[in-house]
């Protein structure tokens, strides 16, 4: 054999080795659909951050089953019609193994029948609508799994917090929309479950300009707390008039404390005008546990910003999915679905992600309170 031929044979062997190892490493395709453009674009961006970070960490450790992950992301603009298009593309064009999404609840509800027909698992990290659970698992669609607490679950968490606080009498105020009506319904059930009496429920139209009658009425009801289900503009208007009128009944619910603090004057905060006001968050980057601090540090190192609810839940949903694929032992959609159903994943939030009969998990949530002159404090983790 001449040197040349010998080199040729080596090259042939090398090539064969490389191509066969290449075959073994054909990556696992994960689909993500979220709102990457439009008003919810920032949230969609964080959805992507979370999934990308989880996949990168997994790939750094060699993936699962000796295979790496690749991500296919499709925009759904928070619109059900666009969502159906995005899901169809992920399923039939990219032929993904599983989908994570779709952020906006209306989109998630729209693509659930598609993933069921395509027999492809869907992991739902962000959509909180109570309408999703009754359709999943026992409800018919056993391909959809939700890792985030639902609005109903979060109402239960608020109920547990109020019980801890020794609250006896409650009132509920909600905007007259799906969100408000759903929130009030969940709260009513949660209060019943923990044995707190609900004195009154008031519905008000969205964009209500004036809250004086409402605030006067609540103060006269002599309740320990009022749970408020309003969205951002109304929340700010509510608290602004709360300050002006010197209202006394403490507020709880789902409002972001940063939004609430921004609506009133620093003087009002400083003299304790809002101390005792509380809001439940599915996630808060300030949670002071070693697991979360480690997560936040890794997230900051990668993206130079703090994680939010979307990035956190999408990160964990991706980890839950990868862990299920590893347990399934093969990249087979049916095997992965069965593995997902048996998930027992220790969340960074301290809870256990496992799915009930309706494929709904009940992770911990964080209760945040204003105290000591309007300072933001995490008062505890409450199971959803």
């Amino acid at each position, binding site marked *: 054999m001449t040197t040349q031929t010998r080199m040729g044979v080596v090259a042939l062997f090398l090539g064969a080795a490389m191509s066969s190892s290449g075959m073994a490493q054909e990556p696992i395709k994960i689909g993500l659909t979220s709102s990457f453009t439009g008003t919810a674009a920032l949230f969609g961006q964080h959805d992507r951050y979370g999934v990308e970070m989880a996949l990168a960490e997994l790939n750094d450790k060699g993936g699962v089953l000796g295979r790496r992950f690749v991500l296919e992301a499709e925009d759904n603009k928070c619109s059900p019609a666009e969502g159906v298009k995005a899901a169809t593309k992920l399923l039939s064009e990219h032929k993904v193994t599983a989908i994570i999404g779709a952020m906006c609840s209306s989109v998630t509800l729209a693509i659930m029948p598609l993933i069921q027909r395509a027999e492809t698992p869907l992991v739902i990290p962000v959509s909180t609508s109570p309408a999703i659970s009754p359709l999943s698992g026992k409800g018919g669609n056993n391909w959809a799994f939700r890792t985030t607490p639902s609005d109903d679950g979060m109402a239960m968490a608020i109920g547990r917090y109020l019980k801890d606080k020794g609250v006896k009498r409650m009132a509920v105020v909600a905007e007259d929309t799906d969100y408000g009506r759903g929130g009030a319904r969940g709260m009513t059930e949660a209060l019943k479950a923990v044995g707190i009496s609900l004195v009154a429920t008031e519905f008000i139209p969205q964009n209500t300009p004036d809250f004086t009658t409402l605030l006067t009425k609540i103060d006269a009801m002599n309740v320990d707390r009022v749970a408020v289900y309003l969205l951002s503009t109304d929340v700010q208007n509510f608290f602004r008039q709360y300050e*002006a009128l010197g209202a006394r009944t403490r507020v709880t619910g789902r409002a972001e404390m940063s939004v609430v603090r921004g609506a009133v*004057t620093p003087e009002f905060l400083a003299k304790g005008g809002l101390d005792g006001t509380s809001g439940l968050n599915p996630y808060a980057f300030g949670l002071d546990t070693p697991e979360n601090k480690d997560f936040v540090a890794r997230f900051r190192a990668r993206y130079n910003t703090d994680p939010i609810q979307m990035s956190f839940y999408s990160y964990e949903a991706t980890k839950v999915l990868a862990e299920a694929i590893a347990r399934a032992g093969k990249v087979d959609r049916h095997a992965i679905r069965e593995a997902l159903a048996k998930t027992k994943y220790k969340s960074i939030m301290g809870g256990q992600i496992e799915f009930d009969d309706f494929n709904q998990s009940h992770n911990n949530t964080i209760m945040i309170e204003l105290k000591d002159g309007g300072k933001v404090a995490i008062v505890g983790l409450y199971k959803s």
Partner: protein
Amino acid sequence: MELQYLLQLAANGIVIGSVYALLAIGLSLIFGILGVVNFAHGEFYMLGATATYALVALLGLDYWVSIVLVMLVAAAIGIALHDLFLKRIGRHEFERSMLLTLGLAMILQNGALAIWGADPKFVRVPALSGLISPFEVRIPLTRAAAFAAAIAGLFGLIYLLHRTRLGQAMRAVASNPTAASVVGIPANLIARATVAVGLAMCGLAGAALAPIYTVHPLMGTLFVFKAFAIVIIGGMGSLSGAAIVAFALGIVESTVGAYVSLSTTEGIVFAVMIAVLLFRPLGLFGRGLRV
């Protein structure tokens, strides 16, 4: 306790009534003289509040000076509105005026959304922080000031209409445009002045209410529907009718909201409007422009 609660509700109602009156009288005035229903009224109110925010919060101007400036700017916008659009619309071309002002409302609302975004803004007037509490009834100073502004605006208008030549000419045009032009009253100039005054009232409303509510592009939508109901119940073009109904509505809303439920108050307003239209089609006080 119960009496004090009632007093508090009545006080709330009167103050909210003055807010409604501020919004309704400009609307009523423009209808009385031009025959135009200004569907963009809520958006001009929003612009007034936004301008107040710009002057007070961004430029650091004195709040009281800002009120005057906002009214002047609003009046100038009123003149432009008249010269560009409203003067091309005849007294009885209701469809055209409706389409025009509705279109304007959409452009202004979405324009504001595009330029300033949907985030609510706050106008803070340190001099007006705090409460007055006569007989243990809590009234925020910002609301007391809005009440004063509404009363001043109302009496200013009454003075204008009854004690000045311009006002007399306005009333003449309102009661009979043809006869007014026969005796040499320039209908066009009067219409222009009316729109200017109407929008100045709108600017006053925006400036007076900015420290009470949050300033954002949709702040006018719900208010303006109430203002329409008030103008219709009071009698289209009747300023005192609008003012009386505004105060009555404020008190009714406040007490019904407190003793029944808040969601029923919205229904009550419009049920009363329908009843009035059925039995007194010209409104409770309606008969051309009366004050």
